């Protein structure tokens, strides 16, 4: 385990022209509550390489999802900025408006009255090139070839989450944000989807920021693990294990053990499997 020395070879191989770096500078988010102002995080600096797979891990209430919402533009930052830099350019970063961000949520957030294809069509408002064939192509990619015209209520939890992933990928995003997407699924389905996500990532080379509170999942997926706690990134670990990763291998178990130790170094606690 090394402290943030990016594996250039791996990242460069995966980075496509469509991937963007994420640059977070002096970012802060506060909420006004009935009892005063609650600061979720402040003065956060972060640089994520294009095409890399970064996992953000933290305990419940550490602000992981809030950070993702600020990056995706769902929430406005209280201070600081988030910019996106194309993978092949050495320029000032673009604002949220200039990039496509695909967001996969903890619950798939599908329109229950629309079919799988229509759910994908919904996010292609100003895309003159969109046809339903594009939606079908991405549904094929996540293994839902038989379910184009099914409503979310006709799909299993895992299938619904696949539609959510297909929807996010279909806009050809420079950045893919995933907020604990497998936490509501049984372990067999979740493991299958993790493998598919990695396969899709390797094929499309998007920049991925993945939130979880599961350390095993983090080590299984990530190039780099960021640990968020007490409003700051308190650990930044490069995962230099070869892929595909066997969770039962000695190297994996040792890495995971050190990650768990580091995870709890901030204040102990029960989260982090």
């Amino acid at each position, binding site marked *: 385990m090394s402290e943030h020395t990016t594996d250039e070879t791996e990242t460069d191989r995966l980075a496509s022209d469509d991937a963007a770096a994420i640059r977070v500078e002096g970012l802060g988010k506060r909420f006004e509550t009935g009892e005063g102002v609650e600061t979720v995080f402040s003065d956060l600096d972060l640089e994520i390489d294009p095409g890399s797979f970064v996992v953000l891990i933290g305990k419940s209430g550490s602000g992981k999802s809030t950070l993702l*919402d600020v990056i*995706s*533009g*769902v929430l406005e930052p209280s201070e600081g900025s988030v910019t996106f830099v194309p993978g092949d350019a050495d320029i000032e970063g673009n604002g949220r*408006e200039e990039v496509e*961000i695909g*967001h996969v*949520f903890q*619950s798939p*957030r599908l*329109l*229950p*009255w*629309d079919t799988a294809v229509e759910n994908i069509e*919904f*996010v292609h*408002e100003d895309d003159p090139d969109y046809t339903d064939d594009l939606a079908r192509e991405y549904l094929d990619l996540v293994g839902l070839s038989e379910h184009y015209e*099914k*409503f*979310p*209520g*006709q*799909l299993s939890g895992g299938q619904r989450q696949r539609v959510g992933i297909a*929807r996010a990928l279909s*806009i050809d995003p420079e950045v893919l944000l995933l907020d604990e997407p497998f936490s509501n699924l049984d372990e067999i389905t979740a493991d299958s989807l993790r493998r598919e996500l990695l396969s899709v990532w390797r094929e499309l080379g998007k920049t991925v920021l993945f939130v979880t509170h599961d350390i095993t999942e983090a080590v299984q997926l990530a190039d780099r693990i960021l640990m968020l706690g007490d409003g700051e990134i308190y650990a930044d670990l490069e995962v230099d294990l070869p892929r595909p990763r066997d969770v039962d291998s000695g190297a994996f178990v040792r890495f995971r053990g050190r990650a768990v130790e580091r995870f709890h170094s901030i204040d102990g606690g029960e989260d982090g499997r």
Partner: protein
Amino acid sequence: MSTATGLRRLLVENRQVVFLEALATAAALWWLASAGFGLTDTLSSPPLVAAAVAELLASGEWVPHFSATGRRIAYGFAISTVLGTAFGLLMGLYGFWEKVFQDYITVGLAFPSVFIALFAAMAFGVGDTAPTVTAGIAPFPFVAQNVYQGVNNVDTGLLEMARSFEVSRIRTLGRVVFRSVLPEWFAGVRYGFAGAWKLVTLAEAIAAEQGVGFMIQTELTRLSMTGVLAWTVLFGAVIAVFEYLVLRRIEERVFDWREQSAVAW
């Protein structure tokens, strides 16, 4: 399945058959009461009413009256639907308008519709306007309240999803908010429609020279129970046909996804 079991199921479980059985039983009891107790003058009887209905249909007398009533219902229903939907959306989407209108809507829900019919009759006199305005105003608080409740129940996760994918407000309103509100909106609109049937005929009885309500009132002044019941039966038949052939079909089509989802699990 034996013939006896099949017949039993048909007679007990088929909705249309049970409806016809109930109708036949009510008609038989009515006939028994009027003939058996010598109350034909008070209760009329099914054969007399059926003959009167047949005469109305054959003479074509029903056409101008049902046209007038139908026109007033259509206009009143359109007014209550547009007003109710607009007020409900405003209240649901903007806290300011919720504060402005909520108390009035609450009072409107409890306000007796007959007062509105009387006020409209006094304000607009005899003619088309009073029944139409009554049917437009009286049910609209129900539509508004339902739409308001529906907007409050919209899944915020879907709104966040739309914002995250930079979907425009107008598309979000149409594809997320309105679709979410549709069950409540439909329930409110159906209530509004049922209210429109009742209120138009009530207002016609007070302030019109044509229409089903006017004819029922006319038969009442002639003390003709058969005439009153003939118009009432005809009116009820039209409502039933509209309910089963139009509203149910629309509802089935609009909420097809719920039916299919329910079947899947």
